């Protein structure tokens, strides 16, 4: 079968460094300037791979519509977007967790808890499963502000080291789920370029073995 170009959507920002390291471990010959370039599309010279550098929340969108064949995306983004893509490998990088946090000893005076979050779907699923009625407030960043200025009783957000919470005087109330980055695949690309994609998946699985902890 002929070698068609495989397009891989990469998340810029927090995960990017980890993802590049993993790709190099998997045998991708990324150029040295890969991490520093401001280009949005990069073609590898030696292999039929094209990388597109997207905002992390958009990676599943590019992959679902087939604009990219593969992508690297955080589980938080995947859960929130609910896109129809194969979630094939837990890459074990950029680990963090989703948590409920707020001011220590805070007593709500609202009839229903007010929850500020960048992840309204995840938060709403969590509280619905618990049978708790809450008012969600969607924010786009610096979520930690919300409980401090009295906009919300608590926040649902990702926590990696816990440093941001600590510096803003917040504590974790509840842990929702663990998060790491995943290799996602467009369902049609998977059928049309199966051999090539299977090879990449195998390479990524092997590269991932080293990063995983607590798996046999």
């Amino acid at each position, binding site marked *: 079968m002929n070698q068609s170009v495989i397009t891989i959507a990469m998340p810029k920002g927090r995960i990017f460094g980890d993802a590049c390291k993993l790709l190099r471990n998997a045998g991708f010959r990324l150029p040295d300037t890969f991490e520093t370039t401001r280009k949005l599309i990069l073609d590898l010279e030696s292999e039929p791979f094209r990388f597109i550098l997207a905002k992390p929340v958009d990676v599943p969108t590019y992959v*679902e*519509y*087939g*604009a990219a064949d593969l992508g690297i995306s955080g*589980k938080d983004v995947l859960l929130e977007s609910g896109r*129809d*893509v*194969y*979630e*094939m*490998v*837990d890459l074990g990088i950029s680990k963090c967790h989703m948590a409920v946090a707020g001011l220590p000893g805070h007593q709500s005076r609202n009839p229903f808890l007010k929850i500020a979050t960048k992840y309204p779907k995840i938060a709403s699923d969590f509280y619905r499963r618990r049978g708790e009625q809450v008012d969600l407030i969607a924010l786009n960043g610096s979520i930690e502000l919300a409980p401090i200025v009295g906009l919300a009783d608590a926040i649902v957000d990702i926590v990696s080291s816990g440093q941001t919470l600590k510096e803003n005087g917040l504590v974790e109330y509840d842990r929702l789920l663990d998060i790491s980055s*995943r290799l996602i695949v*467009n*369902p*049609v*690309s998977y*059928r*049309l370029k*199966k051999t090539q994609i*299977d090879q990449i*998946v*195998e390479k990524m699985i092997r590269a991932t073995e080293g990063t995983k902890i607590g798996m046999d």
Partner: protein
Amino acid sequence: MSQPYMFEKPLGLRDTLPRAQQEISRLELIFQRELQRWGYDFIKTPALEYAETIGRASAIADNRLFKFLDAEGHPVVLRPDMTTPIARIAASSLRNAPLPLRLSYTADLYRSQRKEGGHPSEFEQTGAELIGDATPYADVEVISLMMSLLEKSGLASVRLAVGHVGFVNAFFYDLVKDKEIVKQLRNLLYNKNDVGFHEYVASLNLPIDAAKRLNAFVDSRRMNNEETLAYIETLVSGSATPVHSYYRNILKLIHLLKLDHLESQIDLDITLVPHLSYYTGFVFQGFGGNLGFPVASGGRYDDLLAKFNRPCPATGFGIRLDRLMSAIKIPDDKRSKRKSAVIYNRENAGIAMRFAAEEREKGHAVVLQHADGIDNPDTFEQQFESVNYFLDRTETGE
């Protein structure tokens, strides 16, 4: 809701303009001809059905149905699929027709979608149902028919993924012996969440061998057809009887597809679980062109007719015309139908009309247009392949 703008339509609905409609008609024509050649009869059903019958049996999630009350206060739905109405017909009006029945349709379906491009709430589908034949020969027939339609439509690099939900259910049940867990596992497959599948298996505290088999099952997607078959064989050793009989079913199908020379276009993927929950046996999805979504899907649904009090095996498929249209790349000159124009004046009305009639009789598309009715001659004439002028000022005596 604020007052809609004059040009707005209800959420998820769209107009089909001439250019797109031409392409849809082209596909409809190809499909109609081919389906008739295979001996399938076309039928039509109403767009509105009772929520208690079609709405419930269709297995489309409740929040995706367009549901409202009819004039008598009965809850009705806009049909979300055609397989269920056809099952209703096969179980009622065509109850006494000899089996197997071969029926086909082209119809608009309605599913309330999320607010995003490429996911319309109303879309056209062409499909076929083969009712009353439980053999794998029937499955091969509908698969070959679907492939033939996709090929004839001009879709490039047509491929098909084939799975078997009956096998999946039996295999899972044999290992975990719990219907709820089977449902969970199947749901994870439907969501294409391999990572979640492995995590869920790990959380079940199954015997090591069972967990290993389940994990290996998902990873089998990455095998080629020969490997998959050999692998299924190792899976069924020591399994319960239903697993074995489904396995023999799969073997038979692959053998038949080989006879039909379709094997090279087929990807046997036993982890394939499509959304409609009424499927009981083989399931398949068709892909091709440059679109990120499957253009066609189908499968065997042996339990659906029983919901209309006529237990009867059946299998079929549907092709989404909106998706197929975006997946096919046709050069612009081939896409637009060639039209010519006849522009005339009062003095030449008679000859112009005769000329146009003769051209139409030959099968050419001709626009007959009086010169005085044209707003801007330059832009008007640009639309046509050629223009014939009948603008002589001398009276022709008519």
